[in-house]
């Protein structure tokens, strides 16, 4: 992914974990998201909500350079992680993803044993402590230890959907990232599993910064401290829509007293 940015960086603010400064993301010539300014606070859960096609997942992927895997995707503007420009030319995307982990919409455990799922990430990043202890700690934090402590050697695919997603979360926290990005983690799961994962997110908030994209507004209310509402507007040319950030504020302000009419319309269910 290519980026253009200005040379001097501002001094990092310790409350802001990721600072998105005038980010515009395009797929080839098509602009998917434009002029986003957003400061993601540390140690809190930030939710990205909005209708389909407004660029939330695109922006989420841009935060840990996953968009590099998509051909033709480019970013203009800057994204700073603790003051370091993520798109500077000498940045190694592997180092970025080491610190900013991701949980995907479809649970995707490795076709290895549950133990190996957790141990793999730890091992390739040079973990030199007690692996058994790390596996147990990660599975406990993801609230799945009780369900699989007797079957650590069984395949990760033998778990149910909700358990697989929690295994993926455990896998992500085992490498001790600073930020966890979650791209609609519960959209493929039933309500009980969703509830368990939301409880997990509450626990994880104490040690990680979390950014979650969700279609479910009630989930955003339950889980997040800050919410960013994105919308998409049709282009003048008539071909496609471009996404933009409408409002970014505390969750209860967004849902109870939004400043923009579009936000009010969306959260009250009038569209989307």
């Amino acid at each position, binding site marked *: 992914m290519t980026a253009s940015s200005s040379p001097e960086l501002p001094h990092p603010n310790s409350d802001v974990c990721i600072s998105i400064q005038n980010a515009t993301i395009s797929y080839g010539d098509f602009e998917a998201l434009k002029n986003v300014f957003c400061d993601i606070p540390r140690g809190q859960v930030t939710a990205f909500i909005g209708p389909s096609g407004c660029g939330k997942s695109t922006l989420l992927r841009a935060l840990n350079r996953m968009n590099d895997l998509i051909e033709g995707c480019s970013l203009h503007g800057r994204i700073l992680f603790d003051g370091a420009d993520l798109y500077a030319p000498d940045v190694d995307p592997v180092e970025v993803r080491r610190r900013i982990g991701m949980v995907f919409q479809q649970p995707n455990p490795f076709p290895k044993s549950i133990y190996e799922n957790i141990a793999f990430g730890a091992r390739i990043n040079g*973990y030199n402590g007690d692996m058994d202890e*790390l596996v147990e700690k990660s599975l406990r934090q993801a609230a799945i230890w009780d369900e699989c402590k007797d079957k650590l050697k069984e395949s990760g695919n033998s778990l149910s959907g909700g358990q697989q997603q929690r295994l993926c979360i455990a896998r992500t926290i085992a490498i001790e990232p600073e930020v966890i990005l979650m791209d609609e983690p519960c959209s493929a799961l039933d309500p009980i599993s969703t509830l368990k994962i939301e409880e997990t997110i509450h626990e994880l908030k104490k040690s990680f910064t979390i950014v979650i994209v969700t279609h479910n507004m009630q989930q955003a209310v339950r889980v997040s401290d800050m919410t960013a509402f994105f919308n998409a507007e049709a282009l003048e040319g008539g071909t496609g829509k471009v996404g933009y950030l409408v409002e970014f504020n505390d969750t209860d302000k967004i849902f109870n007293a939004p400043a923009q009419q579009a936000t009010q319309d969306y959260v009250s269910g009038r569209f989307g």
Partner: protein
Amino acid sequence: MRYSSIERSAEGIPDLSYKSWRKRNISSRLLSFLAGVFACMAVLPLIAVLIYILIKGVASLNIDLFTQLPPPPGGSGGGVGNAILGSIVVTAIATMLAIPIGVGGGIYLAEYSTGKGFSQFIRFGTNVLAGVPSIIAGVFIYGVIVSTRILFGHTFSAIAGGAALSVLMLPTVVKTTDEGLKLVSNDLRRAAFGVGASHFVTVSQITLPKAFTPIATGVVLSIARAAGETAPLIFTALFSPFWPNGIFEPIATLSVLIYNFSAQPYDVQNQLAWAASFILVVFILALNLLARWLGRIANQ
């Protein structure tokens, strides 16, 4: 720290730069380089052959090459006109034999068979036939057509040559027809049945046109393979230094001409063999490009 790889600079800004001294980055670069080397080595034989033939053959490209008969041993001048015509004739006969049988067989396998027993045997037999050495196909046709004089008393003939080549083309055509028809989604067939079409009408007017491109691509590729075969033609079409005299007589072909002339001790013949090689390679390249172009117009 349990993880030794996370570093921050003095002001607490994370160090995200690419560390080229890390073991995993070194091994990554080394293996990428090796993979590139192997890819080049894989493509090298093709490039070497093409360049060599180009250099040797293009020197003698002139209009005589396409319009004149080969000279007698010890003579000079001449061309490979009869061989070009002969290759086209023999390939055309092979195509006319292979397409109906191959496409028909593929249609049976994909549309009419139950997938058990007989059709399993046919599919397996087709796979085996694909691996049969080309000289065996030639010997087979020699035994069936040439030595029995079944073609109104004629022995070596263009038809026999075409038959031998069609044996080689058949497995590819059957397989690509089978696969191409299987790719057509069942929704389309159900739609046709839903408006009351018979099985035959469904296959001929709905399914087959939809699968036209993979079938055409497979046919063109099998033609490209057959056009370059030499061994089957040696026993069946033989060779003739004259213009084609009807399809019941021996006929000259580019591949057999190359085989014969490159072994002769005369420079003129050797040069003609190089020129014929060049023409044959260009011909096969053109067929392959045609197959790719056919494949592309499907995706539009």
